[in-house]
């Protein structure tokens, strides 16, 4: 039940709905809880609603930070 997944916005639909995709699977969800959604954005999907946008720059920065940590570098 707590499962939430990152999905990509394919198409905006009327009434704050959007068609989203994950690895070739598509679904229509509500984006009423998230501001300024555009096609191509990644969203956290939970029980049919987007809860947040995924900040793609922060996602890359987190990975870079983790890789740096494996070298015994910065925290």
């Amino acid at each position, binding site marked *: *039940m*707590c499962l939430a997944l990152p999905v990509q916005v394919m198409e905006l639909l009327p009434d704050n709905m959007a068609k989203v995709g994950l690895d070739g699977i598509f679904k229509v969800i509500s984006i009423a809880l998230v*501001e300024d959604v555009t096609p191509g954005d990644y969203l956290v999907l939970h*029980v*049919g609603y987007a809860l*947040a*946008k995924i900040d793609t720059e922060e996602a890359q920065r987190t990975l870079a930070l983790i890789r740096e940590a494996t070298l015994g570098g910065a925290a």
Partner: protein
Amino acid sequence: MKYIDEYRDAKLVKDIARQIEAAVDPARSYHFMEFCGGHTYAISRYGLEDLLPSNVQMIHGPGCPICVLPIGRIDAAIELAIRPEITLCTYGDLMRVPCSNGLSLLKARSAGADIRMVYSTLDSLSIAEAEPNRQVVFFAIGFETTTPPTALALRFAIAKDLANFSIFSNHVLTPAAIKTILENSDVHPLGPIKIDGLLGPAHVSTVIGTQPFEVLAEEFNKPIVVAGFEPLDVIYSILMLVRQVNDGVHKVENQYIRAVTTLGNEKAKCEIANVFELRESFEWRGLGAIPHSALGLRSKYAKYDAEKRFEMVTPAAQDNPACECGAILRGIKKPSDCKLFGKVCTPDSPMGSCMVSSEGACAAHWIYGRFRRQGKADESWRTVA
């Protein structure tokens, strides 16, 4: 899969585990509670405990909404669902939770009650719209992640003038539960529990942000790292906790920064505030009654509040006395400490709530953890390049 596979890189996970091993002080122990069932699931599924040094212990917390719901609330929902005019809608995980008289929602449905499993509150609205002669009740459950969708469903129902839709609210609040656990960690009747830090919830924090945890970290001198649910997120967050403990600091850090901000989702918080108000007190399985730990519908929405509309009562209900869910939810006992575990209690025929949802500590341990080697974990990974 984008933003999933990158955070499941096995080599990176092992590299971080080595960093943890290098960082820990061998003269002390580290006890970290993961509040969320999502973390419990990831730790079991990816075998992360086996990658940790023996003096770093993970404690499974109560962050599975199915597990913490007292069975009296499900008994009340079944009482409602057997009325001929009622259609009860709810999420699938709740269907198999054992409750009083050997019943569950699934068994009540088999006996003729109109109980339907839905993926989303939107589905329950569609049912109410399509069947105006039925009274459609959404059995709402969950932490702050599922609360905004329930709030929106109510708003949509009002906008569509759906007089046959109502909500049985069982939404609960994460910070209140964490506070109770930390307040009672030394003095609870079930026994003391050592907690050096917490993995904070990922998706709950997309809604409420990291700010509500700051007062807890400060008041109880415990580091809290809000962590994503993928294995790399979890193991790196444990490293962040180890570093805080070593440095003697207790702050809130945000590892899941790609989706979580300090203040969270203002729009979602606004939807919650418009529809819900704090309950004075709410009973949690394993934790008892916690003040201001749950949400009920505001009185102006009384006609959409199933508890008021149908004069529901929550019967006092006893858990199976042999079931250790209460102690497991508080991290005092492990699933394997329960004499029912794996004997009469399995995911196919659960006796307690922790065995129902995949995020429950018992179910996660049954599915992924029970084949772990007894005693010392396999050390061969440490030699992998």
